[in-house]
């Protein structure tokens, strides 16, 4: 740009015109970009990502019910609502939904942010027989040796890194037997996960890690079969021992508040010579 032009812009009283132009361009750009990013809905991919860790199509009940023939069993309308938000169906008192919820040990199905049209595509995919599945045949946890359990614990805690570089479970999960600090409380406490998911379900959950965030983290860095087994063994043992992790929350808050008070005290000390009153005699200064 020539210096004159630049100066003209700078001195232009009508700067708003330039700004709105720039601004509009930026906004349009981001919107276009965003639209391009939001790719078309792919039912197969969605099923793989979101459904397959809890459901099968023709493979029998798993964490959730077998979906084979679900289109015949339930009305399309019901399915759309159920898939979009199962919990609101239950709280609305829908008898079928409640019954299923009870049957599957009150495990909540996550909400799916899908349009009715997208649900229909998904249902059509299931209707056609769903994905081609390889069954997972891990050994049952009862066959684990103490070494397996030990390994599982180390993996869970992160003292031994996961082979493919995934973060340790403790970041988000806690387990009863973990000592005073416990693990993360972002996600479920896993103390009883073994009895809730049962052996095969847990294996699948560990290998396919289908819950939103876990999937994103572990699909690029999956657990190896050995790791999954060791973790399952560890969780099995935790389940046997039973007690939920002790709440460390109170102590944590207490420490934080303590630290905060300490810092405020240090602050006061470090600036103890700050001016605390004015010099005006009328305001009590100059004495």
């Amino acid at each position, binding site marked *: 740009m020539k210096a004159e032009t630049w100066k003209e812009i700078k001195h232009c009283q009508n700067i708003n015109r330039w700004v709105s132009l720039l601004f509009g361009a930026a906004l349009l750009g981001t919107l276009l*970009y965003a639209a391009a990013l939001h790719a078309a809905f792919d039912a197969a991919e969605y099923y793989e990502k979101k459904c397959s860790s809890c459901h099968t199509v023709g493979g029998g009940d798993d964490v959730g019910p077998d979906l084979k023939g679900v289109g015949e069993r339930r009305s399309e309308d019901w399915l759309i609502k159920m898939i979009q938000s199962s919990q609101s169906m239950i709280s609305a008192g829908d008898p079928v939904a409640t019954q299923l919820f009870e049957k599957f040990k009150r495990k909540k199905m996550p909400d799916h942010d899908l349009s009715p049209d997208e649900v229909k595509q998904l249902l059509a995919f299931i209707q056609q027989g769903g994905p081609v599945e390889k069954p997972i045949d891990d050994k049952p946890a009862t066959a684990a040796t103490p070494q397996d359990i030990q390994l599982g614990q180390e993996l869970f805690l992160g003292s031994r890194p996961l082979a493919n570089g995934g973060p340790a479970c403790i970041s988000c999960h806690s387990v009863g037997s973990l000592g005073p600090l416990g693990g993360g409380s972002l996600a479920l406490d896993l103390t009883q996960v073994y009895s809730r998911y049962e052996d095969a379900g847990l294996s699948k959950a560990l290998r396919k890690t289908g819950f939103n965030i876990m999937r994103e983290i572990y699909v690029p860095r999956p657990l190896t079969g050995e790791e999954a087994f060791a973790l399952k063994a560890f969780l099995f043992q935790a389940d046997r021992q039973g007690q939920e992790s002790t709440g*460390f929350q109170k102590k944590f808050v207490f420490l934080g508040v303590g630290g905060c008070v300490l810092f405020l005290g240090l*602050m006061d000390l470090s600036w103890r010579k700050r001016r605390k009153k004015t010099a005006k005699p009328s305001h009590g200064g100059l004495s």
Partner: protein
Amino acid sequence: MKNYLLFVVFPYVAIALEVVVSLWRYIFRRHEFTSLSSEFLESKKLFWGSVPWHYGILAVLLGHLIGLLFPREVLLWNSVPIRLLILEVTGLTFGLMALVGIVLLIARRISDPRIRQVTSKVDVLVLAVLLVQVASGVAVAIGYRWGSSWYASALVPYLRGLFTFNPNVEFIAGMPTLVKVHVFTAFLIVAILPFTRLIHFLVVPVSYLWRSYQIVVWNYDRKKIRRASN
């Protein structure tokens, strides 16, 4: 789609706003770049608000930045429980300091008639948003332990995705509402930053550290002029 709008589209809009409007203001309205300090009108209460607020929030921001840049190292550090505890308690300490600070600053703005005179509507917005942000952050830290770990493993990939133009909203979609609020408000702050007094954050005078103590400015190159006319 909602998540998509809030956590992919909005962040980009926010960043675009931040960059474009800040630059615009810096070029055309530089006079408005100021921290609008009100210490001159009221100093005693400000001390207990401003100092913990700024030190707290800067430490917390630094923590977030470290997590963003070195997530693996953070996880490695956290693999020993006592180290995890140190990190988390430090984070909570500074978070609480920021919370105490912002609450006191708000109280000061409300209670002091002089300070109310220099409070604009935008200031109210800024304080409200910051309060939500810090309060939700502290609540997340307490309610969803251990933030440093799952931030590094579950949220950092989302943020990195944003910066590498490969955003993945799934990381956010499964997060608890409180975390979503925290993330959204963070980008809201980015979006409103250039419209508010927060721009003072963009002009931290670091160059003071190496500039010489005295500055002399000539209106014109005097030596050149003299040479030309002589």
